[in-house]
């Protein structure tokens, strides 16, 4: 196995900029206050993110972006995860990559310049059965002349009310396909806010039953593998950032809280699992930047192994860290007031979006064990 990890100058600069930006823009008090806001991020902060070029990182220069690889989004998502910073960036990058990898030239020129300039977008893939296989879709599209009539329900559509366009997966002629749904095509009530475990997220269900789109809104290709890979790398970045965040919360408490006249971090029952969390973080960050390195390279098998490995390891390690963070805070950990719960909720969100560790190990097994040597 080529255990390769590279970081170019641009990525290094993005890492430094993003770390500063997110630390300044997303202190814990603001994260908590943001939970009750209608939208994920305030307009001024979003505008700064646009000005930093973050919305257009992967968008080709002719469409107004920077034309860099997806790996350049990783340092940004990682820093946002570190500070639990909300914004429609995740949803927008997902939609951007779907349009980039499956869309037509016209669809790209319709949407990518707007997105690079700050228009949010989203993606609707998952359905009520919670199936992680993106190609097993129940919602349908039926072509009637120039229009496609949609039917069915999607769920976990992030930041949907802010999105000018939503890329949705539907079954057309028994094939899973992708369509663009302009926000203006949605009847009142089509989007409904859902209660999800991570309260920093704004998730919506999307009812497609009364929705029609023009036939030219169908994406010519259906690269679900690329969409899944985008989701995995973005989530792994958030996971890695989140693990560093929660480890700081734990270490702060273990070095200040006293019980039986000594700091609780001196007790091995707490110290040893905290070291396990540290090693989980070190592993997660290594998997993450290895997976990021493979994104820019041609070998598909290496990339798939890297991404499934990263998501499997990261999901499990972050969930463990969040779980232990609650326990180590004792009675305080049981309260809403303790920041540990914010991280546990984030960990569980990341774990169950786009496949948990069991699912990804299952996906890895044939790749690692059944290939002829």
């Amino acid at each position, binding site marked *: 196995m080529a255990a*390769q990890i590279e970081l170019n100058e641009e990525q290094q600069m993005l890492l430094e900029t993003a770390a500063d930006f997110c630390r300044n823009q997303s202190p814990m008090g603001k994260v908590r206050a943001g939970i009750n806001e209608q939208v994920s991020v305030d307009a001024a902060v979003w505008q700064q993110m646009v000005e930093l070029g973050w919305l257009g990182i992967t968008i080709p220069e002719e469409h107004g972006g920077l034309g860099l690889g997806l790996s350049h989004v990783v340092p940004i998502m990682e820093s946002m995860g570190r500070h639990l910073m909300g914004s429609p960036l995740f949803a927008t990058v997902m939609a951007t990559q779907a349009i980039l990898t499956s869309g037509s030239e016209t669809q790209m020129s319709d949407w990518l310049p707007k997105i690079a300039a700050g228009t949010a977008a989203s993606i609707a893939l998952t359905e009520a059965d919670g199936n992680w296989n993106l190609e097993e879709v129940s919602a349908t599209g039926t072509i009637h002349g120039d229009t496609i009539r949609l039917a069915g329900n999607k769920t976990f559509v992030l930041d949907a009310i802010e999105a000018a366009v939503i890329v949705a997966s539907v079954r057309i002629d028994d094939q899973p396909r992708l369509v663009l749904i302009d926000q203006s095509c949605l009847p009142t009530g089509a989007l409904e806010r859902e209660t999800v475990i991570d309260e920093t997220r704004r998730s919506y269900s999307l009812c497609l039953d009364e929705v029609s789109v023009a036939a030219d809104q169908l994406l010519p290709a259906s690269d679900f593998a690329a969409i899944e890979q985008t989701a995995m790398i973005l989530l792994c970045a958030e996971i890695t950032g989140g693990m560093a965040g929660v480890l700081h919360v734990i270490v702060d408490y273990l070095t200040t809280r006293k019980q039986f006249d000594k700091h609780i971090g001196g007790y091995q029952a707490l110290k040893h699992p905290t070291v396990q969390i540290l*090693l989980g973080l070190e592993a997660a*960050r290594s998997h993450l930047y290895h997976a990021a390195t493979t994104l820019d390279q041609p070998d598909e098998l290496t990339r798939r192994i890297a991404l499934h490995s990263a998501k499997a390891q990261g999901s499990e390690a972050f969930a463990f860290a969040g779980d232990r963070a609650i326990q180590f805070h004792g009675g305080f950990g049981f309260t809403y007031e303790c920041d540990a719960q914010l991280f546990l909720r984030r960990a569980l969100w990341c774990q169950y979006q786009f496949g948990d560790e069991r699912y990804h*190990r*299952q996906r890895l*097994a044939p790749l690692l064990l059944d290939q002829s040597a």
Partner: protein
Amino acid sequence: MSVQPQELDEFSREVSAWFAENRPPEPGFLLPETFMEVGEDRQFEFLRDWQNKVYEAGYLGMAWPEEYGGRGMPQAFQDIATREMARQRVPFMLNTIGLNWAGPLILNMGTEQEKQKYIKGILSAEDIWCQGFSEPDHGSDLGSAQCRAVRDGDDYVINGSKIWTSLGSYARYMILLARTSTDGPNKYAGLSYFLAPMHSPGIDPKPIKKLTGEYGFCQTFFDNARIPADSLMGKEGEGWNIAMLTLTFERGATGGQAGGIAAMDLNINDVVELARRSVRGGRPALEDPLLRDELVSLMLEARNNALMSARARVPALATDWPTAIPMSGKLRNSELKRRMCQFALALQGANGARFVSAGAIDGGKWQRSYFNAFSGTIGGGTSQIQHNILGERVLGLPKG
């Protein structure tokens, strides 16, 4: 010194050809996996000859200074030679304590005279080294060492005992941690460090039988043993700091080792290969979803370790705890090895319960490796102590 990539490529081809051509034939007896398991003279002689041959060919100590017996070349060459030894799975370099711990220590802080005296013999395997840190009553707590060294004229007189001295009965020198004083401000202040000649009157290494039933370790007894005063390294009272420096070499946290592989290690690919030919409950093991999941988990863990080493080479990607990767190497690798071997037994069905014998799968090497894997999780500071060290020194948690 800058090295041209084509120079390295050329060297890589040369070294690959040399090992392919010169690897020793199978000896006809089971070789040990590491230097800690050398229990028979024939094993010892075989491995000593092999190290000497590799050194004479120029593939050991390549980055050590020429004036002491090295070749004074850039580390990159040694790394290539070491990787090639691992790739071709040739027998390991016997003199591990000398090559990886005592040697780098002497080069790092020894006197000119010490360098002249010891380094070449370490590389050629003429002088085998052993380690005298642990004591029977103080396994992981080195600071409490009780073995006494009392200055008497031109000698130190040593009394006490050391345990787990691998190669003790073959060694010419020991790195020895002994107490020269009991009235310092703390237990560490009274410790001193010696490069002790083993063939001194009053030093008696007695082989210990291990849980595998084999030999390989000694308990070394010192009964009014006299060693020359100039075998003291540094000054009296500096023993603890020198021992800690030694441990950074042992744990691989600091470079400077002579190179060469230190073990003929089983790795995760060997376990996968075993799984491919294993039958459990009448079915191929690889058809069992539970075994597949466990195996994939172990493969992920092996990947963790390989990727952490890769990330350690990109300083911009260090986390807020930058010493975590180098300081956790021993813990991560030894624990993985133990669980990997444990899992290998599970692939064997009822044959998991066999031991080294003709009837066992692969001659029982998995069972032996599992038992021997504890030397990694216990020696050099147990895994539990490693957790304390990482918690305290890397995360800044208070001592217990």
